[in-house]
């Protein structure tokens, strides 16, 4: 860092991926293709230490995520530790399996907020996308208990070609369930979503229509339902400020304790990730080679380096740059100034125009040994 470089900001959010185990097998899962096994997961004491260190470092929000975080037998204790250290706890859950049974204890432990995923509103479609039978009834019961306990509820809907016609129904469902907030989050194409991109990519016309529906509903429901919209990258003009800028706001701890600047960072070859098993979170945030690699603006090539947007979008997404150009330090090709921009638009349009029924590769622990068909969901948890 030179003298003119800004002081290193404190991280504001911690994404705690407590486990990669999950009942659902969504084909756009943001977990890596190679999932951490249960035997490699951090223990309760280590998570307590990590959370205490995060609070001291300046983290305000903790996102208890996965996989399905309620699969952890110590989820209540972990939540209680967030409350003890002043951290705002956000449970990111599918609401199935044992989630409902643990919900009252989580509320008693001081849980601040629940974010519940829905794969679709149509039951059959939801269960086809999530690859898990009878999910919808469990989610409805879970949502009802969240609001009965007085906890704020957010509904999360990841949008893709298989459910983009249900955006208006997601909005109605959020209102009916008493949610305060709805995330209409168009799929971001990393990991499993990248593998399934041709089965997930919607058309530009459908994307535009979905955005119009959200904007109309925002006005009509102002003060009742807050709708956050994540627009799909490939059709954008400028890239998103991915994770608020690399190493600026977010810390991601994986189930086995590796610390990442974003959940997809391990797709970038050559980065050295440190583990909470060996070092403190403060040490990792400040000095880890992975966090240093793309922090700030010094690493940027042209056209980013001389761009007046460079401290707004921080060069966009490194993982996407790698996935689409083969070079993690290239300008995010979503950006109109990238030499690859036109090719990305063409690619998205070509994949969106595939007329065949979507066939997914479902998320699993052993990639490749399942039939890649959407017809036979079987939700086992290993």
């Amino acid at each position, binding site marked *: 860092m030179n003298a003119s470089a800004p002081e290193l900001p*404190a991280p*504001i959010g911690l994404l705690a991926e407590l486990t990669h185990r999950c009942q659902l097998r969504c084909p756009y899962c943001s977990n890596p293709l190679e999932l951490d096994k249960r035997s490699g997961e951090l223990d309760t004491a280590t998570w307590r230490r990590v959370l205490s260190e995060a609070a*001291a*470092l*300046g983290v*305000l*929000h903790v996102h208890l995520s996965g996989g399905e975080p309620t699969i952890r037998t110590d989820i209540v204790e972990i939540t209680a530790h967030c409350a003890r250290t*002043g951290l*705002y706890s*956000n449970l990111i859950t599918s609401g199935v399996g044992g989630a409902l049974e643990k919900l009252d204890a989580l509320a008693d432990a001081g849980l*601040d*907020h629940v*974010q519940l995923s829905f794969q679709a509103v149509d039951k059959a479609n939801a269960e086809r996308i999530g690859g898990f039978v009878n999910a919808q009834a469990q989610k409805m019961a879970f949502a009802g208990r969240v609001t009965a306990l*007085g*906890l*704020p509820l*957010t509904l999360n809907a990841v949008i893709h070609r298989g459910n983009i016609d249900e955006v208006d129904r997601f909005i109605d469902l959020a209102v009916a369930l008493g949610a*305060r*907030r709805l995330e209409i989050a168009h799929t971001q194409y990393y990991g499993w979503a990248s593998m399934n991109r041709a089965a997930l990519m919607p058309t530009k016309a459908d994307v535009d229509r979905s955005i119009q529906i959200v904007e109309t509903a925002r006005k*009509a429901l*102002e*003060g*009742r*339902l*807050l709708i*956050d919209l994540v627009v799909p990258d490939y059709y954008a003009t400028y890239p998103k400020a991915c994770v608020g800028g690399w190493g600026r706001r977010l810390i991601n701890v994986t189930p086995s304790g590796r610390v990442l600047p974003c959940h997809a960072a391990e797709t970038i070859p050559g980065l050295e990730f440190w583990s909470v098993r060996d070092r403190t979170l403060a040490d990792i945030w400040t000095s880890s080679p992975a966090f240093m690699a793309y922090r700030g603006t010094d690493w940027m090539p042209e056209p980013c380096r001389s761009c007046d947007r460079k401290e707004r979008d921080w060069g966009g997404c490194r993982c996407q740059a790698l996935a689409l150009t083969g070079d993690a330090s290239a300008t995010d090709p979503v950006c109109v100034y990238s030499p690859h921009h036109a090719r990305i638009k063409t690619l998205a349009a070509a994949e969106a125009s595939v007329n065949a029924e979507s066939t997914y590769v479902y998320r699993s622990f052993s990639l490749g040994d399942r039939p890649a068909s959407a017809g036979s969901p079987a939700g086992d948890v290993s």
Partner: protein
Amino acid sequence: MREFLRLDDVLRLPRGSRLRFDEVRGTHVLLAPERTFDLDAVAADVLGFVDGIRSVDDIVTALAEKYVEDRGVIERDVIDLLDELLRKRVLDR
């Protein structure tokens, strides 16, 4: 459409909207689902008075006693702040 905030409205912080002092950054914050609102000293005072008992008018009166400022100016600032937070669903009335 939504009704604009009125002086006789009584507001409260629902569960999931939490005031705290951020010692690392030296500032008051309102923590809410997926959001952090940085609060200056006056905004922290305003929200400190949001208790499910005081009306908006009571809050304006309390602030007018504390700050040497025209009551009309205070009233406008208080309503702007609280209405914005209502719109974002982090306050209840």
